[in-house]
């Protein structure tokens, strides 16, 4: 005792407890690398610790573990933690005295935790050691060297011979251990930190109070701070959600106030959370604004009532991104980064149970305060839809209230189904844009299901509501709703139809003539989703080199979507009517080609090289036809020119 050791010394320094020291075959003793403590601390402060302030967290964590260990030996021990700031009279750097009524350390344990400090600078090995109290003690203490050059630990073990030991460690990597001349009268540990001159800002009363409250504010034993002889308890009340309140209103108000303190947000509502699995409890706060889709909310999480993370992410089901939580878990395993929990079965069950807490809240709202639920849907529709997808009962409850965009305006599904026996929807926005106007003009109500979850929700409808009928809808379905031609009209249009068919065959496009509204629309081009992709592939093929053109052929040969596109001419349209009377074959051909290109462009289908050629050639053709016909002079302005903008 009293001898100065190096943290890492050849005799006992870096061998992990329980592991044999290695001797080589010829009996020589292995040498060990010399590891610089300064280097290790630098490494830790860059990789393990987010700021020097975590020294308070680490000391609290050590104290918490020591108190728990003591309680295992002596169940009646309550334990307490004290922080005392001692200012130097001469204006020198202050000292922080950190005390706990924990289990203390024996001499053997003191050496052991130091061995741990030197053992490895690898983060994952350090993390692995966190599961054992002694190993953690060493790592925790190390963080103190971010703010001071020398540490004094005075400790008396509840297990030992009653002696009080002093350990003095220095940032240069040396330490000594001796029997203290000032024995403690009860088991526990006192840590003295003399602030490094450049780190005094981490030792002000305000900073120490704020840090200790932040990390230890929910601890189940008193944490006291003493400054200038005055002592205050930093955690008088425990977790606010476990406190007693006179009325539910008081409770709500107090918890919302707590939410404001923690997250700086005025939340809409507060929901109690509880899970047997993982022994989790806490509160969820309903966000006052719509978050991004699937935005991972960062929750504040306590592990055994000690702050673990302010940015835990994987605690709730995916759909539940409308809330932020504060929870404590006693039985969850944190990951190495301590930002979230390890994905094991306990977490899966806990997540399920917490999801049930939220579900119950939504179910209660639906039954008791439907208006409140509707407001919630307006704000957090995506979360509500996400849950409805996963949960049939909830689906039944809310599906009718969900608003959808349709070709006839926004309406709830209930409104839609009152007027329309079959729910027709377009799965893509593109598809909706192509049909909305024409569908509306025919009096058809088509629902835009391009937004997240909408298609899946609608497809679920017949499974949950057996009498409901739903059907996807695309521009290819529109002509079915169009009016057929009369026999006379059919005869009159026949030559045009045949010619158009021949003209568009190379473009893999069929032709029909029907009557539909609005009359200003001369044509409707329709193809399914595969058809659109086919066109994309065709354009890529034209642009690419031989190698990839060949590869694309291979891909498209195996793909579906051989269905031809369709150009439907509208006989209500004056231009189309006049076309039926045109005799000149060339002009007719040109007109059909131009109608085709125009239909593509209006539907925002990019042209391939062949179609582009058609457009260029066609424009010139039309101009020259006009010049021939009128010699450049006036004449009646043909309606054909009107469709081309």
């Amino acid at each position, binding site marked *: 005792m009293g001898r100065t050791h190096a943290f890492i010394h050849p005799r006992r320094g870096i061998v992990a407890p329980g592991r044999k020291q290695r001797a080589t075959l010829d009996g020589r003793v292995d040498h060990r690398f010399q590891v610089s403590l300064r280097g290790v601390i630098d490494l830790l402060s860059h990789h393990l610790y987010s700021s020097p302030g975590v020294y308070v967290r680490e000391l609290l964590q050590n104290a918490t573990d020591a108190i728990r260990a003591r309680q295992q030996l002596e169940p009646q021990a309550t334990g307490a933690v004290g922080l005392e700031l001692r200012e130097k009279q001469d204006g020198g750097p202050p000292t922080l005295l950190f005390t706990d009524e924990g289990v203390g350390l024996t001499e053997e344990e003191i050496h052991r935790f130091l061995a741990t400090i030197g053992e490895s600078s690898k983060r*994952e090995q350090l993390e692995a050691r966190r599961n054992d109290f002694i190993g953690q003690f060493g790592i925790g203490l190390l963080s103190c060297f971010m703010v001071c050059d020398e540490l004094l630990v005075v400790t008396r073990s509840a297990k030992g011979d009653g002696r009080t030991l002093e350990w003095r460690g220095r940032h240069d990597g040396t330490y000594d251990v001796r029997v203290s001349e000032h024995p403690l009268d009860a088991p526990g540990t006192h840590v003295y930190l003399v602030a490094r001159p450049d780190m005094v800002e981490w030792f002000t009363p305000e900073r120490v109070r704020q840090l200790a409250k932040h990390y230890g504010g929910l601890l189940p034993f008193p944490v006291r701070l003493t400054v200038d002889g005055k002592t205050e308890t930093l955690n008088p009340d425990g977790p606010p959600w476990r406190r007693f309140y006179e009325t539910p209103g008081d409770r709500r108000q107090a918890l919302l106030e707590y939410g404001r303190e923690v997250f700086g947000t005025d939340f809409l509502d507060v929901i109690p959370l509880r899970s047997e699995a993982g022994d989790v409890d806490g509160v969820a706060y309903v966000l006052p604004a719509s978050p*991004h*889709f*699937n935005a991972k909310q960062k929750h504040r999480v306590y592990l055994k009532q000690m702050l673990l993370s302010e940015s835990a992410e994987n605690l709730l089901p*995916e759909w539940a991104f409308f809330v932020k939580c504060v929870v404590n878990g006693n039985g969850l395993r944190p*990951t*190495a980064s301590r930002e979230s929990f*390890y*994905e*094991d*079965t306990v977490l*899966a069950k806990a997540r399920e149970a917490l999801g049930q807490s939220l579900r119950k809240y939504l179910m209660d709202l639906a039954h008791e305060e439907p208006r409140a639920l509707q407001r919630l849907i307006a704000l957090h529709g995506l979360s509500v839809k996400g849950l409805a997808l996963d949960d049939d009962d909830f689906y039944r409850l809310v599906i009718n209230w969900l608003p959808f965009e349709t070709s006839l305006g926004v309406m709830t599904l209930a409104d839609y189904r009152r007027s329309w026996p079959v729910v027709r929807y377009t799965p*893509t*926005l*593109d598809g909706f844009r192509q049909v909305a106007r024409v569908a509306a003009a025919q009096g058809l109500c088509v629902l835009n299901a*391009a937004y*997240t979850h909408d298609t899946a929700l609608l497809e679920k409808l017949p*499974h949950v509501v057996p009498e409901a009928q739903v059907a996807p809808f695309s521009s290819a379905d529109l002509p079915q709703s169009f009016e057929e031609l009369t026999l006379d009209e059919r005869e009159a249009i026949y030559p045009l139809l045949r010619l158009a068919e021949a003209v568009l065959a190379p473009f893999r496009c069929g032709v029909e003539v029907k009557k539909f509204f609005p009359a200003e629309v001369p044509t409707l081009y329709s193809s399914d989703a595969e058809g*659109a*992709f086919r066109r*994309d*592939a065709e*354009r*890529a*093929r*034209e*642009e*690419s*080199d031989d*190698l*990839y*053109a*060949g*590869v*694309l*052929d*291979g*891909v498209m*040969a*195996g*793909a*579906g979507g051989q269905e031809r596109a369709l150009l439907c001419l509208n006989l209500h349209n004056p231009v189309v009517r006049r076309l039926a009377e045109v005799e000149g074959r060339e002009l007719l051909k040109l007109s059909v080609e131009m109608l085709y290109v125009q239909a593509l*462009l209006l539907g*925002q*289908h*990019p*042209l391939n090289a062949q179609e582009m050629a058609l457009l260029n050639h066609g424009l010139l053709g039309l101009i020259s036809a006009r010049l021939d016909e009128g010699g450049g002079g006036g004449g009646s302005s043909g309606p054909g020119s009107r469709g081309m903008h």
Partner: protein
Amino acid sequence: MGDWHQQVEALRAQADELPEGDAKVRALEEAVRLVDVHGDVPLGYELRDALIDAATFGGYPDKALVAFAWCRGQQKKDPQRFDPEDMLWKQKWVVGRLDEFPHISRKQIADALDDVEQSFAKLDAGKRAALKLRYQMARDMGDTAEAERLWEAWLVAPRDHLTDCRVCELDDELDHHVDKGEWEQAIQKAKPILDGRQSCAEIPHLTLGTLLYPFFKLERMKEARDCHVRGYAMVAKNREFLSTVGEHLEFLALTGNLSRGLTLLEKHLGWALEHASHRDRFSFYTASSFLLGQVVADGRDEVSLRLPKAFPLHAVDGGYGTRALQDWLESQARDIAARFDARNGTQRFTGLLARNTVLAKEARLFPLD
């Protein structure tokens, strides 16, 4: 039409916010079409660059390929403006999946691989990346001797900026051990991934599926269950993982969790019906066929299932004969296997399908509920 730029930007912003999957791919495709209508080549290039990512990670290798082929054309026309080097990383993704389309010939695949190698060589880099691509192609196409040779060469080649990240490489190494039945070694290698210490965009999603069978073989059922519970949740919402969903389905069938298995079939058959990757379809159909075989063996003649309308045997009342269902699934797998084997000139896929018979003998009850 003056606001088309705004429309494009709105679509791009929408895509940015969406998770990997259909909706994100659709938004970018729509943006690309809009840009093409207006003939803005640089913007079309930029958006396709994003579309390649979305399609690759959202389960549309065909769309990634189409977008890449177009960009490739622009690179050839104007390499100053559209630098091929910036897209070499993505070229690896695209070329790495060519073998999953049975209509692409061996020659075309070989040419694309040579082309990658030449492009890499121009930068005097990418040796290791190219070797891995070649190894994986040879393995997937059943050229065992060549795969063995390339495996050795790949692992000793030096890393550089074109090499995949260490985690992805580690995950890719596991296949080799699983192929050889080296269960312990696969699990040991995967430890940093299993512990959650290392991850990447699709890791551990893929890894947890890969390790189900090794854990099962070693009768380490708790760890197998953990892989299933953690892993399935990660892959359940993205069709990119169809093949991994197949591994989970196989595991459920192997352990007698038939009802859970059927639920997976209900949820994911729709993906398989239209998935561009025939290899992923094959994996899923093969596993599903095994599942239905186990249901039949369990003495069930009929099951009620909610299967998609696009399913050729779709029944309105949801009642399906289990034998008919198995026949259909197996015939799909057999068709694809035949096409692949004919193209590859090997028997790998026929062999993979025949593995179902072995699995049926290995099945062992391990209820998850």
